[in-house]
């Protein structure tokens, strides 16, 4: 029972990192209606940025994280302006999907050039004193607690931002009907840029948490978590922030439990298998809206 609960907490912690990434995915999808395949690679850039600042330059941890967030935020805006915006009216969502793949290649190979292909060992941002904690019979990693708390705080901030502020309301409006939003005087371009900025900033935080959790950092570090977070977003109903949160958590738990109790090798297959079953039962995900096509 003790191991089960420890596994559950580890799963929740990895899941909350997936959730943070998935929220970025889902927001961009909801508003720009595109699958940003480069999202996972922004996580990687964020991790490298934090690594260079904290481990190499010796910048204090909070400043390092802030720096990483700012770098990713700018990167997200730049990518959107240069690579995605020109194709917004291309007529096929596939065109911008492929461009996103190109951006993903670009970031991975750029990182390969700058940082080399060998694995960097990321130093955890968690103070050594709380690396592992003993709570009752349970041994819990500090990073697990930090990840879960961070994700909850971020979701809280985001929900408040979207529900209470004008730019947040603009985002909501754009996600529902871009044309109508622009007729109401909302700048669709600025709103999309803002969404990319927020999504990328969250990716940076996810990167720092992820590398504190498992320290191996390479140019392809972000790819698989990116894909998994994407499945988590779909799983929760793409476009829905609570959906992405729940999807991320469920995915993390399933992954951890199947790694521990079934097999390390086929845990990915199990995660994807559960996703497929959920989608077949509920074709628009847990929180997705069913859109009836009007005849």
């Amino acid at each position, binding site marked *: 029972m003790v191991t089960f609960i420890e596994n559950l907490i580890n799963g929740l912690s990895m899941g909350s990192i997936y959730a943070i990434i998935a929220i970025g995915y889902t927001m961009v999808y909801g508003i720009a209606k595109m699958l940003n395949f480069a999202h996972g690679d922004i996580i990687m850039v964020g991790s490298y940025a934090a690594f260079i600042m904290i481990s190499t330059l010796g910048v204090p941890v909070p400043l390092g994280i802030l720096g990483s967030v700012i770098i990713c935020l700018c990167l997200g805006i730049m990518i959107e302006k240069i690579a995605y915006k*020109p194709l917004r009216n291309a007529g096929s969502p*596939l065109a911008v999907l492929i461009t996103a793949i190109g*951006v993903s*290649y*670009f970031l991975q190979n750029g990182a*390969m050039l700058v940082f080399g292909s060998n694995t960097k060992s990321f130093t955890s941002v968690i103070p050594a004193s709380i690396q592992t904690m003993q709570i009752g019979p349970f041994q819990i990693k500090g990073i697990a607690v930090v990840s879960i708390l961070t994700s909850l705080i971020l979701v809280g901030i985001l929900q408040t931002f979207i529900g209470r502020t004008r730019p947040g309301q603009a985002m909501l409006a754009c996600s529902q009907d871009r044309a109508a939003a622009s007729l109401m005087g909302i700048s669709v371009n600025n709103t999309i840029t803002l969404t990319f900025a927020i999504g990328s900033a969250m990716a940076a935080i996810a990167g720092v948490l992820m590398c504190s959790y498992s320290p191996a950092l390479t140019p392809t570090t972000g790819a698989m978590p990116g894909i998994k977070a*994407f499945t988590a977003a779909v799983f929760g109903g793409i476009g829905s922030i609570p959906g992405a949160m729940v999807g991320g958590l469920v995915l993390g738990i399933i992954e951890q439990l199947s790694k521990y109790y079934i097999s390390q090798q086929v845990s990915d297959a199990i995660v*994807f298998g559960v996703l*497929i079953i959920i989608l077949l039962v509920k074709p628009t995900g847990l929180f997705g809206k069913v859109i009836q096509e009007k005849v």
Partner: protein
Amino acid sequence: MKERAALIDRTSRNDFVTYGMVIAAFVIVQILSSMGVLTNQLQGLLVPLCVYAIMAVSLNLVVGILGELSIGHAGFMCVGAFVSALFSNQVGGGMPSLLRFIIAILLGGIFAGIFGFLIGVPVLRLNGDYLAIVTLAFGEIIKNIINAVYIGIDGRGLHASLTSANKLVDAGTGVILINGPQGITGTPRDSSFLIGILLLLVSLVIALNLTHSRDGRAIMSIRDNHIAAESVGINITKYKLTAFTLSAVIAGFAGALYAHNLATLTATSARFGYNMSIMFLVFVVLGGIGNFRGGIIAAVLLTLIPELLRFLSNYRMLIYAIILIVMMLISWNPASRAFMEKHRLGGHLFKKKNTAGKEGE
């Protein structure tokens, strides 16, 4: 009467240009090869080029003709590769090598087709990005399981395990067929450029003849407007499955060709992961969705560019990524497309023939 005869001629003529292009490419490569101009690296790329071109044909059937997005086609290729390699390994010298290879290719195609059908039945009622993610998931599951499974055979029959090859089969009589992450070794190297080109032609004949037939029209009508298709009595499920299954069969052919070009066949991410499926999608979109010829050209160009950029050493993949982004921006940006159309720039590669179904109406 004349116009009717002309109809069949016109589509056939366009198809023959495509076949001619493939044959011409073969002849040119043969000439260059006999002149000794081709580097070893390029020689080694010839079979993979055919594999990728066939995958472009296969995926175009789903993305361009059926109008659905699949990011799991590497999974079907993986099934074809492993089934065909298992067969060739088991038969070994017991059959003339050409016959063995033909049967292996057919088996690869059939098994991939069975997978395509079985996956298609439940998932094809999803659409758009949901279908895309489910196909991605299936591709990853196939790769993941083949990569983790140990299969052996002995006097008592087939055995499988997810943990190790130890004690899986009787010592002496038993043989390990798939050794987990080590995969299959010792597959005969039956693939050649000639066979690759022939297989590409066969795949093209299947795809093009299907497209220009009663079934093909039904499939494209679903892509263009599924509600109208139903209203004229088109069985949506049946034709979606037809397109998806045939596409998987062709991917299985490509897998067989791929497997018989490798000394060791492993189900790694670099070979059969979602990254490969995405690369096939890039071929299709860049070549012009629904344009089989363009897809093949894009497959060849995008495979050759990294090789031609070898002089850039470390920078080549970065440049490749930039070229990909710039090509997409130039060929799909509304302003640049209008410019090209006005000045009649851009050949078939950049011509958008059909749009995949997703735009709302």
